[in-house]
């Protein structure tokens, strides 16, 4: 275990936890400016969280332990990948404990706890949100694992640090067809997993169009703060993985502590860029009908399958 690695892991945990609301604020601000509005400012989500933490927590009658435990578990499943994944350093002490498959599975665990909490309330909205979310999750899994496969074929491992280090040593690998196809497939996966347009509209008020929001209609106060924070962290983690698996330059690999501040800045910049790009793209898109979403996910699956195929045939 490397002290730089440990320091880096703590640093990236703080960065992801602290920066996730800022990323959400940046995305909202980009959307606002493109729509001609002034926007509330990049730090508005932090104000929202601060206020929510002070509000009264409410437990609806008829819900049980699954409802009570879900915000904490969701946040925990967002924190552990943030500590494991190579965002600021490739030498995180937990790197050998979880590889890309385990990180993806942890994010899925978070979704599952929220779905169970929604079913626990016993309302029709909760059930509807849970059912739709599970359908999207089931259809996104093949794309994720095939993209992981495509990434690991050249490297010979699904270990995150190994993939990042291999890309650092061989930069031209990024522009290979396999890599580009896998990147597009993972981008669609990110959109589907975090419930952004065109799969789900995060700011809709119509319950019948909700997927993720419908699961959290009953939460208030600190519970809601944890859920919103964890959702922003999941988006940050996924965008961070997208950035660092395909463009890892700037990450701290060695044993020197001096590389860490640069790595922090570079990572924040990359994620901010990706987030702004995603927000700008959302301005041009409308939400897909729920039963058209499987077609989108099937398309991304084909891209991932092509990525694996080209990595073999063009090897």
């Amino acid at each position: 275990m490397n002290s730089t690695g440990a320091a880096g892991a703590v640093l990236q945990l703080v960065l992801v936890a602290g920066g996730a609301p800022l990323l959400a604020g940046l995305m909202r601000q980009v959307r606002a400016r493109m729509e001609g509005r002034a926007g509330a400012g990049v730090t508005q989500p932090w104000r929202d969280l601060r206020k929510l933490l002070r509000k009264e927590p409410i437990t609806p009658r008829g819900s049980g332990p699954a409802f009570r435990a879900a915000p904490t578990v969701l946040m925990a499943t967002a924190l552990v990948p943030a500590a494991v994944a190579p965002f600021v350093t490739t030498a995180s002490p937990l790197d050998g404990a979880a590889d890309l498959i385990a990180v993806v599975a942890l994010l899925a665990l978070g979704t599952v706890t929220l779905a169970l909490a929604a079913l626990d309330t016993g309302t029709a909205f909760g059930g509807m949100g849970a059912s739709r979310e599970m359908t999207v999750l089931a259809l996104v899994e093949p794309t994720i694992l095939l993209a992981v496969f495509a990434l690991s074929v050249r490297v010979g491992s699904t270990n995150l640090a190994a993939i990042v280090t291999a890309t650092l040593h061989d930069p031209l690998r990024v522009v290979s067809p396999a890599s580009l196809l896998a990147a597009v497939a993972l981008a669609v996966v990110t959109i589907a997993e975090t419930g952004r347009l065109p799969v789900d509209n995060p700011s809709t008020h119509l319950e019948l169009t909700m997927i993720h929001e419908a699961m959290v209609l009953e939460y208030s106060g600190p519970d809601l703060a944890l859920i919103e924070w964890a959702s922003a962290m999941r988006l940050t983690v996924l965008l961070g993985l997208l950035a660092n698996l395909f463009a890892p330059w700037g990450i701290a690999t060695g044993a020197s502590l001096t590389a860490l501040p640069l790595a922090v800045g570079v990572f924040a910049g990359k994620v901010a860029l990706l987030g702004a790009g995603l927000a700008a793209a959302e301005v041009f898109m409308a939400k897909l009908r729920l039963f058209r979403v499987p077609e989108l996910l099937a398309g991304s699956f084909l891209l991932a399958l092509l990525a694996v195929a080209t990595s073999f045939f063009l090897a």
Partner: protein
Amino acid sequence: MRRLLGKIRRTGRVAEPPIPASEQPAPAAAAEFGGSVQIRHVDAGSCNGCEVEIASAFSPVYDAERYGARLVASPRHADVLLVTGPVTRNMADPLRRTYEATPEPKVVVALGDCARNCGVFAGGHGVIGPVSDVVPVDVEIAGCPPPPEAIVAALRNLTGR
């Protein structure tokens, strides 16, 4: 998409300069909001004129979101209940239940003359009374309908931004 991008560039910023906050003292509960207010709109029986004005207040021209106010779908996520219209018989219980579903600290804003004193619908057989008859009201915004500037001014008061 290129046309839309061109249109965005040509239109530029549409939001008008900020409207000053209203001079009324803010309710006590608003002190805890700290610049972030989530609003749940309840239509207790209005003619939809106030709803059009609310939509304008959150439109790009007046952009109430820049002061930290945001519309949400569930009262559990809300701090402020924005009630429009006189309270009709069928909406009295739902309004009460919405009020009870909102977590503390909460503020009720009665928007428009109908919410304040039943406006033109006073005495109608389907109307119970103004909003203050059903839930305690903290802020009132006068007008039939109140202009978006008045709505934004009241919201600035609540958020403190």
